[in-house]
């Protein structure tokens, strides 16, 4: 479309006196305030946003059974008991202590299998225990005893999970977690996490025995944990 010439600049002829030249208004708008506001809102929404859906761990508790015949038994060679005591007061930065023993608790004269480590050290203990249990069973596969883990194998084939051999070999590994009355929730989650990290299939949370608690308390007292 042809534009109507209103400027009158280049055509040469002048408008009459008193006729004012219309001011040419720029179509440009100062956008600075709008941008300011825009960024203010962005900042607000970034700060209030909760992006992630909550994540968590699943736990399955066993049903309480009073009949000792129906209770699960753990092989002594594959059992590891982990006890949780009092944590260090917050802010000291020390890794919290963890107490453990292999098999059954022996604290007779000369024999003592009650040991102390930290949350950093317990992973190595679990790894070593698992390797130990696996080592005891490696000959199973050479002797054609795969049928022991028939169920595991079938389930694994369904899920296309190549892990079943390891799960089969470590089937005797049972970790018993005994949080004491002074343990906190973080310690419990941390120790359950170690089970996931080290792929321990069988573990249980059990109430701590008086004898164990006493040992834990004695160790705490000598370590100066208040």
């Amino acid at each position, binding site marked *: 479309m042809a534009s109507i010439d209103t400027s009158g600049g280049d055509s040469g002829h002048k408008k009459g006196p008193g006729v004012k030249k219309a001011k040419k208004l720029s179509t440009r708008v100062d956008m600075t305030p709008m941008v300011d506001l825009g960024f203010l809102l962005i900042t607000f929404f970034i700060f209030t946003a*909760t992006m992630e859906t909550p994540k*968590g761990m699943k736990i399955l508790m066993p049903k309480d059974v009073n009949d000792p015949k129906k209770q699960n038994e753990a092989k002594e060679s594959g059992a590891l008991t982990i006890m949780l005591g009092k944590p260090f007061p917050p802010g000291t930065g020390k890794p919290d202590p963890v107490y453990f023993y292999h098999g059954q608790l022996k604290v007779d004269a000369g024999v003592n299998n009650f040991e102390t480590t930290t949350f950093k050290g317990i*992973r190595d203990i679990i790894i070593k225990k698992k390797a130990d249990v696996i080592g005891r069973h490696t000959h199973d596969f050479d002797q054609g005893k795969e049928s022991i883990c028939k169920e595991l194998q079938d389930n694994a084939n369904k899920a296309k999970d190549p892990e079943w051999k390891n799960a089969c070999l470590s089937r005797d590994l049972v970790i018993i977690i005994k949080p004491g*009355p002074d343990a906190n*929730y973080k310690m419990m989650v941390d120790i359950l996490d170690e089970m996931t990290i080290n792929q321990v299939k069988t573990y249980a949370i059990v109430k701590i025995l008086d004898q164990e608690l006493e040992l834990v308390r004695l160790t705490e007292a000598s370590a100066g944990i208040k």
Partner: protein
Amino acid sequence: MPSVKMPRHSTDTDMTPFVDIAFLILSFFIMATKFKPKEPIQTEIPNSVSAEELPENDAMMVLIDSTNRVFFAVLSEKDKTIPGKVLDKIGSTRQMTFTADQKESFRKAGAVGVPFSQLSSFLDLETEEQAKIAQPGIPVTDTLDNQLIYWIGAIKQVYAEERRELKYLVKGDGMATYPTIEAVIAAFKRNDQLKFNLVTSLENAPTNSDLDKYNRRMPAKSK
């Protein structure tokens, strides 16, 4: 000598693309934002390597704060009738009656942490007043009066009647001590609810641990 004339540049820059992007980001955040649901207590949840996604709807949550107070929350944004039904069930087991206002107040409260004896008077308060008062927490550690059992039992019954699946969540502060956790677990067990989830924040599996190796071997685990 003729001087070289430097072309004069305007200091005005064209901000249009800039504004475009800014508003694009703004609209993204507006849409992606979910406001944090109001919780009466602050919990600092521990880290874990578990990455199971948890539901935000059709679930119940037990909250435990750092001073071992226990709270109960119904997460049912979509079905607003659930909290009222839970109160009805509580009422029938504890011989209490609740008015429609109290049910509405319960729905808005988010989480409650009072013993049954104080429940009615707590629900009579306005939502703002409820936030102000310090709730003592649901009594759990006394094995003879573990009131969380009734709360879990009530919501479990409601969902069984609705024929819908209910998820059970526990969100505890890292500093909460074990006897309280044990009592909460006992309350679940008493209701024959042996499967529940702990809300944790995600951290990476330590390198070269068995879990790490497993994850690398099976990267496309579609679950």
